[in-house]
């Protein structure tokens, strides 16, 4: 049971880390246009 005292704070830290990564991705414009990537493969050139 003692491992909980390590793992639970660790999981909280990981959640915050993932939250930060998502923040960066979001403000880097990753999710601004979700439809385009799907149709990009269909265009022949570029």
């Amino acid at each position: 049971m003692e491992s909980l005292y390590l793992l639970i704070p660790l999981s909280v830290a990981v959640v915050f880390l993932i939250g930060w990564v998502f923040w960066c991705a979001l403000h880097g414009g990753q999710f601004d246009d979700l439809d385009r990537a799907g149709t990009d493969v269909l265009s022949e050139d570029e």
Partner: protein
Amino acid sequence: MTGTCFHCGLPLPEPGRWRAPVLGVPRNFCCAGCQAVASTIAAAGHARYYETRERPGAKPESLPDALAYDDPLAQRQFTDSNGPNERSATLILDRIRCAACLWLNEQTLRHVPGVLRADLNYTTQRARVAWDPVRCRLSDIVAATRAIGYDAYPYDPQRQGAFDRGARRKALWGLFVAGFGAMQVMMYAFPAYVDEGTGTLSREAEALMRWASLLLTAPVIVFSCGPFFSGAWRELRRLRPGMDTPIALGIGAGFAASAWATVTGTGAVYFDSIAMLAFLLLGARYLELAARQRAARSLDRLSRWSASTAFRLEDGKYVQAQAHELVKGDLVMVPAGDRIPADGVVERGSSSVDESLLTGEPLPLAKSPGSSICAGTLNLEQPLTMRVERAGGETRAAAIARLVERGAASRPRLVAAADRLAQVFTWIVLVVAALAGLHAGNGWVTIAVLVATCPCALALAAPIALTQVSGDLLARGVALTRASALETLASATDVVLDKTGTLTNGRFRIARVELSGRADSAECRALASGLEAGSRHPLARAFEEGKSVPVESIRNVPGRGLEGKVDGRTLRIGTENFCRELAAGPLPPPDSALTPVYLADELGWLAVFHLEDTLRAGADEAVAALQAAGLRVHLLSGDHPAAVSALAVRLGIAIWHGGASPQDKFGYAAQLQREGRVVAMVGDGLNDAPVLARANVSFAMGGGADTAQRHADYVLLGNSLDEVPSTFHQARRAMQIVRQNFGWALAYNAIVLPLAATGWIGPLEAAIGMAASSFIVVLNALRAGASAQEPEPWKASTSSSLSRSPSYS
């Protein structure tokens, strides 16, 4: 009084223009923005700030913008002049959150002196405002909304794009934090659920889980629940609780109680329920936001051309200019791949133009010198040189955009009714929650009632479905100009079709000329051509070619014909009856299948022109589809009864009336309405404007007269009759979905309220029930737009946008 602004200390550009009393003394301000800020501060009872401050206040950041809106040149882009004493524009409202905000803004705008009308729409977050330019300025209107804590700015596609992106990012961030937090908190809650009194979980371990849950629920409250709290605050300040109030109270109280239980180590915690509720609610709202933006985007495409630049010929050189600076007569070069900046005629070059933006027509059209081209369409192949005829707000694209915006800014009756109902229901919920809590002596019962019975589903039931449909219709070339028209269309029982220009193309040619012998064919044609010269009637176009005789004092009798004088001799051209009133002697009988146009003078008839029109493509199918949909189809035309009868037989229309004047048409629609029928009218011409306005719901052809379009609820931009039955189909489907949603929302709330009030439902079940109910309603509403993607039985498959992609690159 000094020459500086009381608020920011800058010099006064127009002393005395902006004044407001602060601390009992009238003060001068440099601009509407400073004045608004100061008035707000004073009105809120915080005027002491001015006595205690050490430095002048900051000039509000958005200030230059508000003044720039008054610039007449800039205004040409987004305002519409309806006479010297009225201007109207569409404003985007910022920070609108609910129907109550809308109400506040609407009231505020309507009380600005000089504002004639203000209609707001939550779906598009736009306000359609009409004002008297003599009595107020646009910046005053903007200032009024800023003074109450909102912001408004004229509709500008680029700015709207940035605004949409910001809103989407914010919503996505809140959703992610709530979702991830909820997932993790549920993991921490899980051991406690499994343990459930068996004692295998040590008190220390449970405390650890609770602290971890608290730590992860806090960001959910801070980052994700902001919209609920600020919405509730705004609602409460005006004592008009909406759907945010119960949610914010439930979440806030639930979190506070759980946090207290964690700190003191006693009582129950519901972190998992709170985080999950926030996640699911935000999920539903994100879908709503996405749907709203998608619908608004089809509208934005119509206006996007206005931001484009043009190459104008000045002193033999092409100089770059803004599209809205162009004036009639300018010669403009449009490179291949560019949007055409104004309406006009091709002077040099030939190319193909993609008009799908305006008409929904997917195939490019060939253009050569002499062809007319419209602003906002895309030049695909070769550079074109064009002569500008209409620019800025006068173009067809701008006119359509304004019609559609009017539609988006008007509030459907159904939505207004749902909002009122939701508001009443919220009061009930608040009272019941308080009473149930007191009765049970348990705060969790109050929270459960608040959360479980919040009328979110009720408030969301109609707007999303209606937004979906109007966006979808526009993408197919049908502009919806009045929001309530979907409701009415779904209940229509009769369709009245006009003949000329609606079922037929309205492109007449002279098939045969019958002469009385008093004048020869060439002379009769020349007289007819002269009489019809100024007319916009479709029949007039048959006489455009060839020589014409100048005619004086031409008088137009709508629906009957024209009268004029040549060398003192009175002439009439038009229907049989119209000419018989003038001419002595009998007139020859009409030919059954052709449309006769009589030419006569006082002595008798001169000639009968038998005109021929072609049936519009898809008319057969459209009539058949309308009849198959259970609608009674009528054919009503001002044309000669014989010609109308021939067409009615051909299309299988049993009820037809020919020779109808505009008054007759109006009376016909009124008579049907007296019989309890709900009438949908499809027409195109100037003559049809009264009946289009009289009918319960009306369609106008996009190629028809402007007046007809202004009176119509739907404008068929692509001139395609196919869209009439498919619009019927979609309206009915949308209303069915809305009814399902209302049914569901009402049934859910009716069942869950007593259960939660008597303590049968705990906070967890309440959160699941409420969020699931909202989700079901939103997902159901999203179906309303999806239906159009299924091929309709009466529609030939249109080529998809992908097949056109090579020409873009």
